[in-house]
């Protein structure tokens, strides 16, 4: 009787010790292809340039911008507070440590959508949550934030609003003087509803 109990005790101890060594692999849990497909089809991974600009201006601490272009391009121009992780060096453990932090939004930025999208698929495959792609990439950023186009006079109110926000953001990022300074400043300070149609008139 006692010998059986000793064996059972040992088995339980070994099983419990075993749990200590489980966690490592767990973080690189792979995604089921079906679920991955579902997520790729859905456009929810995209954030617009306006949303990114807003988060940078507000100093949102949960935002993590990752620039996936090569180092040279990154040196030439990059978004404020962004980190450079070229596509080919994603799998460095050092770089992976930026991902999968609870409560942060990782947004991938490249010239256009393609490289950022590839990066996004890779991170999903690795099982990370909370990764996004900046829609249209830096090309779109240039068109919408750095050199926003004034909408025509009969454009909708929402478009006008988007434009004035962009003018404000332009000032913030380039230091350019604004023509209608009062208006623009107010737009930056006022926190708009997140789901307003700022996406309209994007790329």
């Amino acid at each position, binding site marked *: 009787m006692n010998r059986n109990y000793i064996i059972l005790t040992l088995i339980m101890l070994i099983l419990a010790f075993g*749990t200590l060594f*489980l966690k490592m692999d767990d973080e690189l849990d792979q995604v089921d292809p079906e679920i991955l497909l579902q997520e790729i089809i859905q456009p929810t991974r995209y954030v617009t340039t306006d949303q990114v600009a807003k988060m940078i201006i507000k100093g949102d601490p949960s935002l993590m911008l990752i620039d996936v272009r090569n180092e040279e391009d990154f040196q030439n121009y990059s978004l404020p507070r962004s980190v450079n992780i070229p596509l080919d060096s994603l799998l460095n453990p050092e770089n992976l440590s930026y991902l999968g932090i609870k409560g942060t939004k990782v947004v991938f930025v490249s010239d256009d959508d393609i490289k950022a999208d590839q990066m996004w698929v890779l991170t999903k495959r690795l099982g990370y949550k909370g990764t996004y792609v900046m829609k249209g990439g830096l090309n779109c950023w240039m068109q919408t934030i750095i050199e926003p186009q004034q909408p025509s006079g009969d454009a909708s109110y929402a478009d006008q609003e988007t434009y004035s926000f962009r003018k404000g953001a332009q000032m913030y990022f380039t230091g350019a003087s604004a023509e209608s300074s009062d208006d623009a400043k107010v737009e930056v300070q006022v926190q708009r509803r997140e789901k307003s149609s700022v996406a309209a008139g994007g790329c």
Partner: protein
Amino acid sequence: MGPLIPNGIIGDGWDFVIAILIGIAFGFILEAAGFSSSRNLAGVFYGYNFVVLRVFFTALIVAMVGIMYFDYLGWLDLSKIFILPTYLGPMIVGGVIMGFGFILGGYCPGTSFTGVAIGKLDALFFTIGLYVGIFGFSLAFPLFENFYNSGSLGNVTLTDVTGIPASYFALAFTVVALAAFWGTMFIEKRVRKNMKQYKF
């Protein structure tokens, strides 16, 4: 994969069928292990019968370690399981009151049901007591509503509070429980030798 019902793998209609089946298994195990006798239950506090400690802590460590493996194998999404919310003050007070209830009544709610099932009158009275107690609590609720809702920490786990991974807790509980099993084996032998009469 799991949990099956929150993930929609098993439909809501099966909920109550599964509830009864799980209940039957629960009741069966409790009764078969001897939890339908208040003397067995109270024995854990007087050192003559440690069946509560053995069953309770074996179940605890098996479930804890098992959950870690289920999580590892991807069978269980730990973010989707229900975590009991923590209310610091009320839970300590509640636990102390339940401790008194346990010593005086000799049962806890689940075990009293199995006692009723096999015809124990004290279990029946305990269950009636439960009913009266909860009724009284509800009626008097406005008196201590503030206290009832105080000390809320949300649905936190040990890991959320301490930052130590869950597996360390599983291991710690296992080691303590196993040590307790061996220790109590000797206590029980000694106490029983001194007992004149022990009627199950």
